[in-house]
């Protein structure tokens, strides 16, 4: 997988519902891999998904999905994309295997191949034992899995997952995230996840796109997003040591305990200089350093900071 290849390229996209502007001069690139689409309610995430699927004609701007123009390739785009919707959905009156095979036929697969692959995909999604049951009798967790199965039956290049862990118990959530991670990281399927659950995004995604009031707020890898300006270091001490903090400050650095034994330290100059200063100060203050790592924010902090900015 090449993370620098743009699967989706959106340029100055504006989408309006009457007087309301849902996406305002929105531009972004979604690259190969697993990308999280973050934003508060009403930010424009759903509108973006609708536009990618070709359900909404943009007021201005444009873009392409998998090399197909947003304006002209609606059906072709949907043939290359799999959508796992947020809501429960199924075709009434069909067994799981019938439903998934039918989804394959709708995507353009020959009936015999769709049926064969429906068995494989259901097995992969953990529904092998229940594949002949009517979907209406499925539990919430099973319904989530079958939505994923019907989305990937035709081997899409890009999977759009809308709140994939909605309504799942902790075990089901773990299993679903494992499945998504396996698909996106081991099977080479590109995934775009729209979710409010930051831990889910953090666990499976490599990159995020943050949307707010129809505008792009931030995009990039999660690692970059979590970086703190000035690149401070988190120093893990064996036990709390006031003298260490005081001496760092006296040396012109910044130091503040973040937990009982961890001190966030920022010292001007090179990384090497900072490390030398930390170790010398620890020696002087008789503090035992157990570890030093680049400090980073949680994704939640990064998200809130991006949104509040």
């Amino acid at each position, binding site marked *: 997988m090449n993370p620098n290849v743009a699967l989706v390229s959106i340029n100055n996209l504006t989408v309006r519902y009457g007087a309301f502007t849902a996406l305002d001069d929105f531009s972004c690139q979604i690259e190969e891999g697993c990308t999280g689409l973050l934003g508060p309610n009403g930010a424009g995430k759903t509108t973006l998904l609708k536009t990618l699927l070709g359900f909404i004609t943009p007021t201005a701007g444009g873009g392409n999905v998998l090399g197909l123009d947003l304006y002209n390739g609606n*059906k072709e785009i*949907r043939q290359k994309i799999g959508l796992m919707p947020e809501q429960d959905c199924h075709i009434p009156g069909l067994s799981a295997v019938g439903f998934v095979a039918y989804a394959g036929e709708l995507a353009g*697969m020959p009936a015999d191949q769709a049926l064969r692959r429906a068995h494989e995909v259901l097995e992969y999604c953990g529904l092998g034992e229940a594949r002949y049951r009517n979907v209406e009798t499925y539990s919430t967790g099973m319904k989530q899995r079958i939505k994923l199965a019907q989305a990937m039956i035709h081997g899409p290049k890009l999977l759009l997952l809308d709140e994939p862990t909605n309504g799942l118990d902790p075990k089901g959530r773990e299993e679903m995230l494992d499945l998504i991670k396996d698909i996106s990281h081991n099977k080479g399927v590109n995934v775009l996840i729209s979710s409010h659950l930051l831990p889910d995004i953090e666990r499976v995604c490599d990159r995020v796109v943050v949307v707010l009031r129809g505008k792009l707020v931030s995009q990039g890898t999660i690692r970059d997003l979590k970086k703190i300006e000035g690149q401070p270091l988190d120093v893990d001490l064996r036990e709390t040591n006031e003298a260490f903090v005081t001496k760092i400050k006296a040396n012109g650095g910044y130091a503040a305990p973040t937990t009982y034994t961890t001190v966030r330290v920022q010292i001007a100059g090179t990384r090497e200089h900072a490390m030398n200063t930390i170790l010398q100060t620890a020696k002087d203050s008789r503090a035992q350093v157990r570890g030093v790592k680049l400090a980073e924010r949680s994704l939640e902090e990064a998200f809130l900071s991006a949104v509040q900015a």
Partner: protein
Amino acid sequence: MSNSPIADLSYRHYDGPLSGVGKRWWSIAKMTMQVATKRRGFWGWSLFSAWWFFILLAVFWFADNVLGNLGGFQQGANAFLQQIKWKDQFIHGFSYSQMILLVVNLMIGVGSIANDNRANALLVYLSKPCSRFDYVFGKWLGVFILISLVSFVPMMVFWLYGYMSFQPYGFWKDAPWLFLRLALVSVCSGALHASLGLAVSSLFNQGRLAGATYAGIYFMSYIFTQVMNGFNSASTFQRTPTPAIVRQLFYGSIDGMQIGLAKIIVGTDGSPLFPGMGPNGGRRGGRPEIDMGQFIIGAPNAAWIVPVFVLLVVGGFAVAYSRIKAVEVVG
């Protein structure tokens, strides 16, 4: 070794063929028919819709093979068969199947979009390379084909029996190429039921509510036409002419419209069920006996019924189409 019946559980890319993005409506039509034909009720009611043709088969077989071979009855049987208006028998059979075609439509058509709405199935359809037109037309086509066949097959069976057995009694001469006209009658029936059923279905999120509404519309319009029939019968009894508007409004229901179209297509005004039900020169209450044929309301005027039929078919489809909203798919 895995415990699963499929040993290789890893995900593999699909590298098989994918057809172009057109003609998804055919997949939807096929599935609509598959789901319908898996129901035992569909076959039961479909068979039952041919009940009058079974009776006709039995009566004509008896007249031809039993009475026709009994000494003393042969002449009577011949006279009976000679008097039969063959094309009217199809109108009778078609008329008597109307109520059952309603039931079949309630089973396979009227609930289809409503049940899809309930199950959010549109999320599945429209996220695939299917357009709103593919979806509605596929559903329409599936219902249309099945109802047309349920209507046509019994008529065709009876036509084949008549063609093989009653040529000497004017079966072909009475209505040449009748089976083509019967096919058109069935097609009209299928189109009307499919369009109206799907239009009503698209307005609801519950198949049962859609079914109840469709049945309500059917029976309300049926009652209206029976009131018109009552006016006609009363006028006939009083030996006064029935107003022309009453004779036209008699066809102002879902089944009336189909029967009216059938009469126009087949080219008949209809007749009593069997010969011998007409006047026999007798008198009743001092007045000449009424010809039973006078109670039959003739074919409607094609100038209004054909445009109304087309309007209902196209309008019903348009209503269903307009109710399918792709933008509601996500969120």
